[in-house]
């Protein structure tokens, strides 16, 4: 747009790209970055899905050897890493990017270039992890990377340690960015208790990331140091304690579970009130429960380690705290149910996925509570029962919610509707395929089938074999379903029915602006007077409490005397892309123990940072704007 670039002399120009591939490579626009996250996630989802196909093909029958054990280990490890770090987390980040500024009434995030930086680090971190396949084999010590197995050079886990640390930098930068955005850039009148629930859940999620990521970074650095540089952190031979790794990993790992599920809970909390045409039941309780999950989530990690040497006191304490955390989760589920209760339900595709989320997540939550019972846990440990449980919460939970969000906000992004017919085909096949794949795993796990085992042992008997065959058939259904979704997505982008600005009769601020969202988001920053601001601009209540539409046009902000706002949008920049390339030499240096590569990578990152600092700013510095007289105290924010 017109305000985006003004010439100013400096060390280098800033890119002007407003169209073509250059516009995407240099963008600092939160909407474009969100879209890039989404499509990158699709690619990694296809890779992770293909890996799961290989796993299920291998396990379709007992004593099968389609894959060697070595390859099988790499495949299941990469499936886990991909789905957790390269699919579910960044898919949430795609929603954070696109929606947070829109839902709080802002024009961009607090640090737009840092936002681009986060995206590129994520992409390059993913490429780095996958490059291991070409460089002597992918990580094969499972996504938890337990030491001392993972410190052994044959496990290729140095790639895991370095790669996840790179991806972690992306998430940490994004977390800081979103926390500052939510705290500091809300539209006038948007108090904490008027924020949409999705914004609340994003805030909690990003605080979880902020405090959990440094801990996994420490664990991964230690692992890296052990595997490559001869350190002795987890080496039992010199007195190192492998349980320390487990503590550090799960101190991150359990908050990570909530990092993956809370954004989906936020999405569902937005879709259900719209689909039921009722305000969310117990807004304050849902918000409080989300925050409580964030706090308690840091106190339950050792239930992943009940079979490790942690002692009976720790087992009892963590069993209790684990049962505790089911309480806020239960509060949320009841609130969602009561939101739908007595509402005028419209079973649109986003609504179906939200209901699917609640029911599947409840199943996963219930099997989760059984893990809190220590003796039960010992029986289940490392069996397919655990695999069933976490797929019910992460696939049936997080992914259902996130896909519901894709259908719900697709019109916001494109101005077109996705096909409801194909959407419903997608939903029902997805639900069927999902339950067919993961339902039987409860049974095969309880019958003793171990996780992470390349060959399904024949001696487990025919019942277990049938369950495994069903699981493998489920993956076929899921694949077909995913293709339906992909087709629907592409066809709707190309030729979807125009949606209008507000296809769902929605409640929150993002629908106040035209769809697709204009470059500057809001021509005039709205002033917020209610929770569900947009709904209150559209509807008044009569004496009986019934919603009455207010006359058309009343939803807009009108103020004839108002001067047109000075709209300042962030400039595009090459530097986030250029700088983050330095993570490649840095990462390979960490993997191969090559200090030259590490040095080159670090130098590259520092030089990139200088490019970032000294590139000219179109409208001057924040503390020293070019086109406006400098005013004392006018120091708001960074570019």
């Amino acid at each position, binding site marked *: 747009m017109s305000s985006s670039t003004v010439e100013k002399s400096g060390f280098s120009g800033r890119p002007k790209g407003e169209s073509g591939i250059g516009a995407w490579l240099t963008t600092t626009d939160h909407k474009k970055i969100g879209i890039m996250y989404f499509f990158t996630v699709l690619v990694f989802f296809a890779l992770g899905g293909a890996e799961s196909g290989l796993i299920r093909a291998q396990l379709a029958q007992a004593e099968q050897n389609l894959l060697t054990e070595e390859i099988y280990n790499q495949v299941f490890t990469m499936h886990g890493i991909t789905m957790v770090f390269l699919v579910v987390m960044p898919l949430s980040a795609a929603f954070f990017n696109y929606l947070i500024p829109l839902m709080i009434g802002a024009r961009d*995030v607090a640090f737009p270039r840092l936002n681009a930086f986060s995206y590129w680090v994520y992409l390059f971190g993913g490429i780095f992890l996958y490059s291991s396949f070409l460089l002597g084999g992918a990580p094969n010590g499972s996504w938890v990377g337990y030491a001392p197995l993972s410190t052994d050079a044959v496990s290729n886990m140095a790639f895991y340690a370095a790669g996840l640390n790179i991806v972690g930098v992306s998430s940490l930068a994004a977390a*800081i960015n979103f926390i500052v955005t939510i705290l500091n850039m809300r539209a006038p009148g948007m108090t904490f208790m008027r924020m949409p629930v999705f914004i609340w859940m994003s805030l909690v999620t990003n605080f979880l990331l902020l405090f959990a990521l440094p801990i996994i970074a420490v664990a991964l650095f*230690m692992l890296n140091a052990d595997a490559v540089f001869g*350190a002795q952190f987890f080496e039992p031979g010199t007195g190192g304690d492998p349980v320390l790794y487990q503590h550090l990993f799960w101190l991150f790992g359990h908050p990570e579970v909530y990092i993956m599920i809370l954004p989906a809970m936020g999405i569902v909390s937005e879709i259900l009130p719209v689909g039921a045409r009722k305000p969310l039941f117990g807004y304050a309780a849902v918000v409080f429960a989300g925050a409580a999950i964030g706090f308690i989530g840091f106190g339950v990690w050792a239930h992943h380690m009940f079979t490790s040497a942690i002692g009976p006191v720790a087992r009892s304490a963590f069993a209790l705290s684990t049962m505790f955390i089911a309480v806020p989760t239960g509060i949320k589920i009841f609130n969602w149910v009561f939101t739908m209760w007595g509402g005028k339900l419209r079973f649109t595709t986003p609504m179906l996925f939200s209901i699917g989320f609640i029911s599947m997540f409840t199943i996963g939550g219930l099997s989760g509570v059984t893990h809190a019972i220590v003796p039960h846990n010992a029986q289940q440990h490392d069996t397919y029962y655990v695999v069933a449980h976490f797929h019910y919460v992460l696939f049936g939970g997080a992914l259902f919610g996130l896909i519901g969000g894709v259908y719900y906000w697709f019109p916001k992004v494109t101005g077109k509707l996705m096909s409801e017919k194909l959407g419903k085909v997608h939903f029902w096949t997805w639900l069927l395929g999902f339950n067919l794949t993961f339902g039987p795993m409860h049974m095969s796990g309880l019958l003793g089938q171990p996780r992470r085992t390349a060959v399904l042992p024949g001696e487990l008997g025919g019942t277990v074999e049938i369950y495994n065959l069903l699981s493998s058939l489920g993956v076929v259904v899921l694949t077909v379903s995913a293709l339906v979704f992909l087709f629907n997505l592409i066809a709707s982008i190309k030729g979807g029915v125009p949606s209008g600005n507000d296809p769902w009769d929605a409640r929150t601020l993002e629908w106040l602006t035209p769809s697709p969202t204009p470059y500057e988001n809001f021509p005039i920053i709205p002033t917020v007077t209610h929770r569900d601001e947009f709904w209150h601009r559209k509807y008044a209540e009569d004496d009986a409490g019934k919603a009455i539409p207010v006359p058309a046009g009343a939803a807009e902000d009108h103020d004839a005397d108002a001067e047109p706002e000075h709209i300042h949008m962030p400039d595009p920049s090459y530097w986030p892309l250029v700088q983050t390339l330095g993570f490649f030499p840095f990462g390979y240096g960490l993997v191969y123990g090559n200090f030259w590569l590490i040095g080159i990578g670090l130098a590259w990152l520092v030089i990139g940072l200088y490019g970032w600092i000294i590139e000219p700013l179109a409208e001057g510095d924040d503390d020293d704007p070019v086109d406006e007289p400098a005013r004392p105290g006018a120091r*708001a924010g*960074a570019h």
Partner: protein
Amino acid sequence: MAAGVETTTMGLDHRKLGMWTFLGSEFLFFGAFVSAYLLYLDTTAGGPGVEIFDIPFTSISSFVLLMSSLTMVLAHHAHAQGDLRRMRLWILATAGQGAVFLGGQVFEFNVFVREGLTISESPFASSFYVLTGFHGMHVFVGILLLMSVYVLSLIGKIKPTQHVKTEMIGLYWHFVDIVWVVIFTVVYLIPEIAVLE
């Protein structure tokens, strides 16, 4: 973000809020390393343990690092008054003290390695080197930031009105100092006293 927006919701500059948020994360980073160190205090695998530390020497370098917080405050104070010349002087003093501290650490590491405490010696050695090494890296980054402020103010990229930039570096620098206070106490002093008793 926008130059035209005068106030933020929390009334705090984005960059400062961002720095505070980041430092919150950093506390857990060092916290995890300190925990590992405490776990491995006695796990020396027959090699050198805490008795290897030279408390008087490290006390002096710690003192220098702590004093650098004072000059950092003076640098920000000078910048807040628009006095870039004095600001640069204090920035140099801060960076110089940081460099003295780093030099001390390099020297100390060399002595320890000669006395047989290498990173591969024991879990104790690994956790000591990785913890203090990461702290040293933070000091190094701090020096880099300080020198950047120095150079950028010379070429006019940092203006007398922009003291928020010095303040940001100051926040980071004070954090690195505070972490050292914890490390010096927990890593050097307390275990050494415990051994002497």
